[in-house]
């Protein structure tokens, strides 16, 4: 063993669930969700077949929030506990959040076109909010790639990711203030106003998207860690 080996960052993942098991679980869950959405769930009384995109749109939106939340949590761990792995984990979580956030914009746009006849509606809270978040997190990448890798970049990214989770509720309030709602409210204070297969389908789709996002997160993280490890090994050998 060369003396340089001691400085290398560990590649070993600290989570317990193996990546192949996760990938298999997301394959099964997503397939199950597709079957339920297209063959089991009943047609919506108002919107008919097109309403089925709701199962993806809403579950992807919640998943994107979860990714941004995870990114902010890892950012906090970086600033607070100085966890050496947290910076990369925060970045990967935000990256997944942006991917799922873009999907929210796309599915929402399709749904708006079919239901209301327009590709874009400023009156739809969630779409506008995701547009603001998309702009915000796109700037996160600009910021991150404008600073050389190192502690300063990790700090900047972490602080900006924390701003993001504060911006989500603040923007949501602002957008609510700015308009009157015509977005269909699915969850009311009395709980979901649907039952039976609709609820089952939604829950399966939601779990499927969360597991899929976590799998993608782990895959990207593993790739990035191997990449960093290879670069370090090259430096040791050089």
């Amino acid at each position, binding site marked *: 063993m060369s003396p340089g080996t001691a400085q290398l960052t560990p590649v070993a993942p600290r989570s317990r669930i193996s990546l192949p098991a996760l990938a298999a679980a997301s394959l099964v869950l997503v397939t199950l969700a597709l079957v339920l959405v297209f063959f089991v769930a009943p047609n919506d009384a108002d919107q008919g077949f097109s309403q089925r995109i709701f199962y993806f749109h809403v579950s992807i939106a919640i998943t994107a929030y979860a990714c941004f939340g995870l990114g902010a949590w890892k950012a906090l761990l970086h600033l607070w506990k100085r966890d050496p792995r947290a910076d990369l984990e925060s970045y990967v979580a935000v990256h997944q959040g942006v991917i799922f956030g873009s999907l929210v914009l796309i599915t929402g746009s399709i749904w708006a076109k079919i239901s209301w006849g327009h590709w874009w509606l400023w009156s739809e809270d969630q779409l506008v909010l995701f547009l603001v978040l998309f702009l915000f997190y796109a700037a996160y990448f600009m910021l991150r790639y404008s600073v050389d890798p190192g502690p300063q970049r990790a700090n900047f990214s972490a602080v900006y990711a924390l701003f993001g989770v504060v911006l989500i509720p603040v923007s949501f309030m602002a957008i609510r*203030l700015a308009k009157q709602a015509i977005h269909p409210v699915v969850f009311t204070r009395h709980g979901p106003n649907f039952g039976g297969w609709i609820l089952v389908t939604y829950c399966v789709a939601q779990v499927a998207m969360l597991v899929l996002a976590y799998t993608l997160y782990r895959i990207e993280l593993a790739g990035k860690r191997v990449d960093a490890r290879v670069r370090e090994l090259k430096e040791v050998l050089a």
Partner: protein
Amino acid sequence: MYVRDVGALARKDLLLELRARDTLPAMLLFVVATFVVFHFALPSGSSDLAASGLLWVAIVFTALLGIGRAFVPEREQRVLDGLVLAPCDRSAIWLGKGIATLAFLAAAEVVALPVFALFFHGLTAATVAAVVLADLGICAVGTFLGAMAVATRARDLLLPLLFLPLAIPIVIGGVGASIVASPGRYLAFLALYDAVFALICWASFEYVVTE
């Protein structure tokens, strides 16, 4: 002790501006020029509501101009290294710079708001209150992001990208307060924005200037 540090830092920036006059004349010229551009951008016969909205565009972009300049002396003369080494709380650097930026923005608006009233239409008390509240939020968040942007390679290019998504709630609150009959909710929202973001900026500024 903390108050004295903040006061000294803000005084330094104000003194520097009094001697060099780098920022304020530029902000003043910019905001008046913006109003003239807006006058020609609005087709004749446009409602006063549209002009009220444009006032907020002018304020946000004028603030951006000032914020972009805020940390330039710190970078060019490497003052920031000295400030970080000084035995004071790091958040005092943010607060001092924020107060100085607020003073510049307020000075620009003392001229800009009457000019707006002259060119477009009169201003309500609610609009002025919203401008004051929005200034606090703009300077708190803007100064914080300015300190980050100045340390990156992209510098001036990055600041608007970082700042504008965070300024959208301010614009919504400001425009709302300017155009509705009962602006209480919008003013309360602006105050909430100020409090929340001032707190998070104050708590995390240390990580921007140290490693």
